[in-house]
């Protein structure tokens, strides 16, 4: 169980802007933290900095309050499982898993046994003598995970662990990662560009844009209380309504809305598509909207509405009893409105 602390980390690549700038983050021990962000946001750089594969220009990285900045990657105890697996193709599966133990001088018999046990845990029992080329992408990913875990790292670093897998394997791999992480209680850092991957895997998400931390919190926070429009958009938000907040009264040109908490300096509110409801009767926080289009998405329906010049999107599990072009009242619950 190791707490990782990043303090004022800055890293610049030759001939380019900052990859990471003045970055502060505490990664709690024994939990899964996701570093989430679009491509080029600096998340992979952070992972390599923690692994010791890159050196920061300034700042400090500590494991349990002990600086590891001058500790080389091989002695740091932060093991990384790469996005493209990087299973050594010239070694057998068993040799791959035992690699880290061999580097530490663990006797052959012992490391073979430990590797076999770890392969059992990742549901690849009996695969010891296979060549990596005989395995599927998902199986190789599990070999990569077993190879990292067998060394009992202080910190486990996973680079896009689910992104190369199809839907069925994603679920399997997620359950496996979470199961093993809980079993070994390893501080785990996952890097991903996919908000869904971060949400289903992590206990905590750190959202990065342009090498800076924009929001840190539990996955649900990013849906319920996004700190900015950019964050809301990153998490699939589409409804942004401009206006002015006075007290808890949000005034817009379409009507007035009551929000939960008064805040200053806000110009928009947002509401998740799944929280907009068709109102049963006229009440506060209602707007008259025209149905533009209704599409079946497989698991739910997606509806597009027009309120004067404003376009809105809502979703529902059941189809609407409304025809395209018809008008209805939409209800925006106060607790679903986030202002920024």
């Amino acid at each position: 169980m190791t707490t990782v602390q990043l303090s004022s980390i800055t890293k610049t690549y030759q001939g380019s802007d900052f990859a990471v700038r003045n970055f502060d983050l505490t990664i709690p021990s024994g939990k899964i933290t996701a570093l989430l962000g679009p491509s080029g946001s600096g998340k992979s750089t952070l992972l390599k900095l923690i692994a010791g594969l890159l050196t920061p220009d300034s700042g400090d990285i500590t494991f349990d309050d002990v600086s590891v900045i001058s500790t080389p990657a091989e002695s740091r105890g932060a093991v990384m499982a790469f996005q493209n697996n990087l299973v050594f193709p010239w070694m057998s599966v068993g040799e791959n898993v035992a690699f880290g133990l061999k580097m530490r001088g663990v006797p052959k018999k012992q490391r073979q046994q430990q590797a076999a046990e770890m392969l059992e845990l990742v549901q690849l029992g009996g695969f010891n003598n296979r060549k990596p080329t005989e395995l599927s992408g998902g199986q190789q990913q599990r070999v990569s995970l077993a190879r990292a875990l067998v060394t009992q790292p202080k910190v486990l670093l996973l680079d896009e662990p689910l992104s190369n897998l199809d839907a069925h394997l994603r679920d399997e791999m997620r359950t496996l990662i979470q199961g093993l992480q809980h079993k070994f209680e390893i501080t785990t850092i996952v890097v991903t560009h996919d908000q869904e991957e971060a949400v289903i895997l992590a206990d905590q998400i750190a959202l990065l844009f342009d090498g800076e931390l924009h929001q840190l919190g539990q996955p649900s926070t990013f849906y319920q209380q996004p700190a900015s429009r950019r964050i809301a958009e990153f998490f699939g938000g589409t409804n942004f309504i401009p206006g002015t907040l006075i007290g808890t009264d949000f005034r817009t040109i379409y009507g007035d809305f009551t929000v939960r908490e008064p805040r200053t300096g806000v110009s928009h509110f947002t509401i998740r598509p799944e929280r907009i409801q068709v109102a049963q009767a006229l009440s506060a926080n209602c707007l008259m909207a025209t149905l533009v289009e209704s599409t079946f998405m497989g698991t739910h329906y997606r509806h597009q509405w027009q309120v004067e010049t404003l376009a809105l999107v809502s979703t529902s599990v059941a189809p609407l009893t409304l025809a395209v072009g018809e008008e209805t009242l939409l209800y925006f619950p106060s607790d679903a409105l986030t202002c920024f």
Partner: protein
Amino acid sequence: MSALQPRSRFTWERFRIPLLLAPALSVILLLFGGGLLLTLSQSFGYLPIIGKTEFSLAAWQAIFQRGEFWQSLFLTLWIGGVATLTSTILAILCALTLRKQFRGKKAITFLFQLNIPIPHIVGAIGILLLFSQSGLIARLANLAGMINDPAQFPALVNDRYAFGIIAEYVWKETCFIGTIVLATLQSVGEDYENAAASLGANRWQRFRYVTLPLIMPGVLTASILVFAFAFGAFEIPFLLGRRFPSALSVLAWRSYTDTDLALRPEAMAMSLFIALVSTGLILLYMTISRKLVRE
């Protein structure tokens, strides 16, 4: 029910590639195949020009019984082995250095690869001018007062240990093998090594267990080619080697140009022996590379 039957229909398409290759192939077959046939028949004693029209194994038996042949073979193996090993080691070190980011990398990489198009003969003359007892280094050493007379300079050309020949091969082949290794290293990147470092491998372990297996296919194939070349090459040992013992190719040439025409079958047998060893090495190279490609 009708089953699909393969059609056996004559089409020119099937002969297109052999026909296109025919002009080039006929030249090769005539010159190379003809020469080979002539060498083969002469090695078995068929030399009508001096009245020998019967085939025999006499020349082959003679070369294997000749002490000079074995000394030449040993020297040739020594030259090929030491030159290949030294250039391979130097090539790996150079490639590992050149893959790093440093100021002037482009210029240094260009210089490293510069001698690939330079002919061996130019290298041989360079070695003569530099390392012979009347060469530049001997004169500089004399000027610096390190030796009293250029003749005191150690014999590095036409010498007992074939230093001059080996030096020329190392000069030329280091960049050949190095270029292949560098290309492999650049295409693979450092990801595997990073993965190994993260798993606890130190610098040496990363080289031993990750880098080396990665570059091995390239190193192996390039070094077999270099060895095969060094084993059969003539001009460098001719220019930079001693008269006795000489490299196998030089011995074959001397027997061929001997005024005694009766030695010619032996020259042919020796040439064929060199060709056989080189062919064996090429086959080994092909087997290894095919195996590696399959894996």
